[in-house]
């Protein structure tokens, strides 16, 4: 990826498509980023939480009397003293068991790290000192710390009234032909595919600064969040106050990756404390809290079988998907988001004629889960890509051929799958073909052979997949969430000097929307992106907006902004037509002026139009008086981007270490708004996916104690673990988005785990061993290679 700065006039005079350097960068590079932890207020108190050391316990008493005299302490709150507030996420489904999440645990704690009290003090050090003085008596209970333990007979139930700790159990698809299909198939492959619990690990943890604004009669919360309006709704719900009395502002946010697209309890506790004390309160999550007592994701077990015919065509697919979702549903997505998305999207890019899928969310005495980047797609892609490899092996066919046999092909779009999802035009075949060609061009196979000759193990792996993005309310409504996300709104306004302000309900936390939205709007209005300012992350800007997650923002937020900008463009053209005495149809907006098409002399600067509209408005026709602004919403059906990943890994038999040597992404996200930003999202996502494949896992011991509580245990990859990644773009414009763009923020994370796992398995071919789980760790790779070709090894599948 090379990136020499901005071009002066975009691509063909348009800003969409230009590798414009980001507007955000200047202040961030100068250390002028404003994160919640940077913000202070007069009289501000710092919050620190008292947390349960036990995964399952009754709180028999809390005695905070020793804290009262502690230096600098202003207050202590428990659940009871706050009135037992809670967050409640619900689905309108009988198969779902709602689990209210108390802001502070009352008499039951359900995971180690669950907060039971909060101390407010003059500084963070004193607050932490004071937490040690809160005396809590616990009655230890039995904990279930994994799926097997949770499902066992006589297992303690994390929540009363459940059976097998099941919080959601939905047979989403069924087909009574499957029995016959499997019985008569040439080959049946399958296995148990598992992925470890992960932590999103943004460099900035969660944080909240809450204060009561007397003049506006509002609780104002500055929150490190991806979803300001949803935080507002959660706070309003939990504290029983109207939403208009809460304002949530996201300042600069140091990464989210889904951790911050749910509402955390601590943020709401801080809000409640500020409301009570009528003093500003700030909390910044520390890294231990972030790794052990926050939200996790991706801990899934897929028991899947697939039937294939002799030619390698898939005939049927049967899946039991179980997700270890921890102790509570997170607001508002609920714990059902992972199992139901997995069951819904498993077939992916492949044409599956008969399908059965059951998705379950199982509660355990561990931290709750939030939709971490990829949300089940990394898992389902891993499953399908492993199945393709196993089928190929069983049938003696090339694994890429088996994929091609089954992929939705050119000419077959839009394709409605057996899972009732409509896949719009993509380049599944083309991206695989191009990846295969590029891998050959670059001589990966020869490199693999050379490494093998040197005594290393080496392997090449692929993963092909699509990424569902930017889906609006109708599609989201199928989830049956009480709060249905999807649409978004934007406004565009031109000020008297011709400068433009865009507001959006989306909320960037690294995705560069200040730049990409400016590019989109600049094209519509004929201005330079430097003249367009984006305001985002503030609930006062829009009645409702859904924030940034699920790869939605550029399409939905950008689409709404484009529509609003188009309306303002119409206003400008109409005003210009009047001022230039022409027809509006002949006016075009370009390079900061309104011009008559074909007449180079007839032009009027947009700034001049703006001046007249605001300061000489009486001289204009009624319909373009008083201002240049518009508001618009956008609610698209959704669109799929796609990619093919390929990886070459080298494996050291003596240590089992897997080194990433080459990585290729051929991706298609439709029209690219800004190639720099798209590449950046791919690279960051791939790195997180490689991390999931080889390095990261959040471990709990059998008693439910978290083990991975520091960065010495949770191994986030550094630059040394990554090789340079090549990214090639195809462009299949989306027919269902304003700009032709598709979302793509999660693709890197979706494809990389399956791709790397396939590469590792290719490296192990010949040993008889293969792995169907991530992360694959050096110890087991070492053991598998040592066992060698003479042993049966752990072959999975039939």
């Amino acid at each position, binding site marked *: 990826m090379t990136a020499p*700065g901005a071009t002066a006039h975009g691509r063909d005079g348009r800003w969409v498509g230009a590798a414009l350097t980001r507007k955000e960068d200047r202040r961030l590079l100068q250390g002028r980023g404003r994160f919640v932890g940077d913000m202070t207020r007069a009289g501000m108190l710092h919050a620190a939480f008292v947390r349960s050391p036990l995964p399952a316990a009754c709180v028999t008493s809390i005695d905070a009397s020793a804290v009262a005299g502690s230096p600098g302490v202003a207050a202590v709150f428990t659940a009871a003293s706050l009135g037992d507030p809670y967050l409640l996420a619900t689905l309108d489904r009988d198969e779902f068991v709602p689990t209210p999440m108390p802001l502070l645990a009352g008499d039951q704690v359900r995971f180690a790290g669950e907060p039971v009290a909060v101390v407010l003090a003059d500084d963070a050090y004193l607050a932490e000192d004071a937490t040690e003085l809160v005396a809590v008596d616990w009655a230890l209970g039995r904990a279930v710390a994994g799926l097997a333990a949770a499902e066992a007979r006589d297992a303690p139930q994390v929540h009363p009234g459940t059976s097998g700790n099941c919080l959601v159990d939905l047979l989403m698809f069924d087909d009574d032909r499957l029995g016959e299909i499997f019985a008569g198939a040439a080959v049946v492959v399958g296995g148990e595919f598992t992925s470890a619990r992960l932590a999103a690990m943004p460099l900035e943890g969660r944080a909240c600064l809450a204060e009561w604004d007397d003049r506006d009669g509002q609780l104002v919360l500055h929150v490190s969040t991806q979803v300001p309006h949803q935080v507002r709704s959660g706070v309003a719900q939990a504290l029983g106050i109207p939403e208009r009395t809460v304002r949530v502002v996201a300042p600069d946010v140091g990464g989210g990756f889904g951790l911050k697209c749910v509402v955390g309890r601590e943020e709401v506790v801080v809000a409640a404390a500020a409301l009570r004390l009528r003093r500003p309160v700030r909390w910044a999550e520390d890294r231990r809290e972030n790794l052990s007592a926050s939200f996790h994701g991706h801990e899934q077990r897929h028991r899947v079988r697939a039937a294939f015919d002799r030619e390698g065509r898939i005939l049927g697919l049967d899946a039991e998907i179980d997700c270890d979702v921890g102790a509570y549903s997170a607001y508002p997505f609920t714990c059902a988001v992972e199992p139901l998305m997995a069951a819904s999207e498993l077939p992916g890019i492949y044409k599956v004629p008969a399908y059965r899928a059951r998705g379950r969310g199982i509660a355990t005495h561990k931290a709750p889960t939030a939709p971490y980047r990829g949300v089940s797609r990394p898992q389902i892609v891993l499953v399908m890509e492993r199945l393709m490899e196993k089928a190929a092996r069983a049938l003696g066919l090339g694994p890429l051929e088996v994929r091609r046999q089954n992929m939705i092909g050119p000419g077959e779009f839009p394709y409605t799958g057996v899972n009732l999802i409509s896949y719009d035009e993509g380049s599944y075949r083309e991206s695989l073909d191009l990846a295969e060609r590029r891998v050959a061009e670059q001589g990966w196979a020869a490199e693999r052979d050379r490494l093998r000759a040197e005594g290393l193990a080496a392997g090449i792996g692929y993963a092909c997949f699509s990424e569902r993005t930017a889906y609006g309310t109708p599609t989201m409504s199928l989830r049956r969430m009480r709060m249905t996300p999807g649409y978004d709104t934007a406004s565009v306004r031109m000020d008297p000097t011709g400068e433009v302000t865009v507001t959006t309900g989306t909320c960037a936390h690294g995705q560069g929307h200040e730049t990409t939205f400016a590019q989109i709007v600049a094209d519509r209005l004929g201005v330079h992106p430097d003249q367009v300012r984006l305001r985002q992350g503030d609930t006062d800007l829009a009645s409702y907006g859904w924030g940034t997650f699920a790869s939605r923002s550029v399409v939905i937020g950008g689409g709404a902004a484009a529509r609003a900008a188009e309306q303002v463009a119409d206003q400008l053209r109409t005003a210009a037509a009047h001022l230039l005495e022409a027809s509006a149809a002949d006016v075009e907006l370009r390079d900061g002026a309104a011009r008559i098409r074909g007449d180079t002399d007839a032009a009027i600067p947009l700034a001049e139009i703006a001046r007249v509209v605001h300061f000489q408005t009486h001289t204009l026709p009624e319909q373009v008086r008083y201002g240049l602004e518009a508001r618009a919403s956008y609610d698209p059906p959704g669109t799929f981007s796609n990619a093919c990943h390929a990886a070459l890994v080298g494996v050291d038999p003596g240590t089992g270490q897997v080194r990433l040597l080459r990585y290729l992404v051929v991706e298609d996200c439709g029209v690219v708004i800004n190639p720099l930003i798209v590449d*950046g999202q791919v690279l960051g996502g791939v790195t997180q996916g490689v991390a999931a494949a080889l390095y990261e896992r959040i471990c709990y011991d059998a008693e439910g104690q978290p083990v991975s509580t520091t*960065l010495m245990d949770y191994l986030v990859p550094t630059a040394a*673990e990554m090789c340079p990644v090549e990214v090639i773009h195809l462009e299949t414009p989306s027919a269902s988005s304003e700009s032709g763009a598709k979302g793509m923020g999660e693709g890197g994370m979706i494809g990389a785990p399956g791709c790397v796992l396939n590469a590792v398995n290719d490296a192990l071919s010949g040993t008889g061993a293969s792995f169907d789980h991530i992360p694959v760790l050096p110890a087991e790779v070492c053991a598998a290679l040592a066992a060698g070709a003479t042993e049966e090894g752990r072959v999975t599948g039939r």
Partner: protein
Amino acid sequence: MKGEGEAGGVTDKHQVQLRVNGTEHELLVEARRTLADMLRHDLGYTGTNVGCEHGICGACTVRLDGAPVRSCLVFGVQADGAEVRTVEGLADGDELSDLQQAFRDHHALQCGFCTPGFLMLAEAYFAERGLAPHASPDKPPPGAGEEPTEAEIRELVASNLCRCTGYQGIVEAMLATARSRYAVGRS
């Protein structure tokens, strides 16, 4: 001027005098207050961010008497009499340094939280390597040695964590800056 603190307990405070980006400061701090917290909250240099408080992520990297340090592992009192450099001191007014501009050109930041740590890490390393930004024209930069390589820079970048970028832009930005300064030093 060093103050005597009371032994033990919450009240062990010390007078600290230091220069941050060339500006003199004097303040009274508790012994246990980390340099990171002292810079951010007592002196208002909030550019440096805190990512882990156990010395792994490197987001809090500043320069203490030239050397790179994880300011979460240094106590403020230890900076008494020292010269501290933070991200706020890199730009010349509103003009970005060559390194900062390279970060921009190569999309080496997304959320920006880890960025100040990487910038200070790079400048500390470059200074040791003889690639300080304003080499004096009359003497060759000491220890300029060999042309900076991708492998060398990637190993340097491995010192700190970034979750957004996948590191590639950061490696490219630092390498471009190192090479360009090396070329200037050689000419």
